[in-house]
């Protein structure tokens, strides 16, 4: 017996399930990526906004610093540095001379000079290294006065480089001129 095929459908039957499956998968993937992209974009905007603001702030600060530096440099250019250095050097030299203690020097000379040698004159000149060069004239009673004086200077830590300039016999006395470096307790460097 031959079966009867009844087809009551208005349209031909199509199986769309693969299409819908593909559409659903594509839509899900798109939605996932879109959300991720939006998140990335917003995060980027936020983070770069902060960094850009920081950079702008830093650049502003750099410009401020440079402007202030230029202002200081301009004021420095107005200073007569050579005259200032010259006056400072001169003032330091004068202060060093003022600070020089003659009392201490005379105390030390009293101790260091031999008993038969008498100081006649002394004039200091101030060196840059803090030493004071003394030009001295002394009177010795004997001919050994010069060598004895130099030896006594060499044996004292406050004196150095004693060197004679002249020795003259004047009657019974010997006039000695010599130079010696003297180191005061408080040495002031002349700068």
């Amino acid at each position: 017996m031959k079966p009867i095929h009844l087809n009551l459908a208005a349209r031909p039957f199509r199986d769309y399930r693969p299409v819908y499956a593909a559409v659903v998968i594509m839509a899900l993937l798109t939605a996932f990526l879109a959300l991720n992209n939006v998140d990335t974009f917003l995060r980027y905007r936020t983070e770069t906004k902060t960094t850009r603001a920081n950079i702008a702030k830093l650049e502003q600060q750099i410009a401020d610093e440079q402007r202030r530096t230029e202002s200081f440099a301009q004021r420095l250019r107005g200073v007569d540095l050579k005259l200032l250095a010259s006056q400072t050097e001169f003032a330091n030299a004068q202060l060093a001379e003022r600070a020089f203690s003659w009392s201490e020097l005379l105390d030390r000379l009293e101790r260091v000079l031999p008993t038969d040698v008498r100081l006649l004159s002394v004039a200091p000149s101030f060196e840059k290294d803090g030493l004071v060069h003394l030009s001295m004239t002394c009177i010795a009673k004997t001919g050994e006065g010069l060598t004895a004086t130099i030896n006594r200077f060499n044996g004292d830590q406050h004196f150095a480089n004693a060197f004679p300039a002249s020795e003259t016999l004047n009657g019974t006395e010997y006039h000695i001129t010599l130079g010696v470096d003297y180191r005061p307790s408080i040495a002031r460097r002349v700068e």
Partner: protein
Amino acid sequence: MIWREKRVLLIVLGLLLLANTLFFFTYRVQYVSRLQDLDARQEQAEAQLDQARNARVTAEQQLAAYKKVQADLQVLYNERWSTPMQRLTALIDEVKRLAAASHLQPPSYSFTTGESKQVSTVPSTKGSVGTTTVGIAFTVQGTYEQVRRLINLLELSDQFVIIDAISLGANGTATDKVLTLNIRLKTLFKDVRTTAPAANRQL
């Protein structure tokens, strides 16, 4: 057949998916790169700021140091050294007072004046240092103790007086202990003829 019927939807979805995929990968890569660039720029700007700040601090300290030197010089020139009109008579009185306090009586005083000279190490310095040097020389006779007392009093004086040189000589016999002291003092005055020193110029 079924794909063709839904092709519009599929194409639209496909395009959206493609666009999102492209955006996802490319934007992600550029995002990191841009962030790194920005970080690098920020670090560079920070380094530049440090550099600029150091330069400013150096210039500021240099200026402050010059200001201090100028202020110190100004005090020295204007107050310690001052002008002859303001300080000379007081200085002479002081020297006489100290000699009297040492029981010494100088029979005469000699005074000299001249522009202060300086052996300068500063290259090509022109002009004077703006001071006048006044010298006072006198001779006194007295015992060694009196001489030492005078020297000590001169050292302790508030006046800016420098003992430039001294010379001693024995007087009479060795038993009378009387010495002759030649003493040369000097002091400095601000030079009123020249223009004000650098110390007086404001930065």
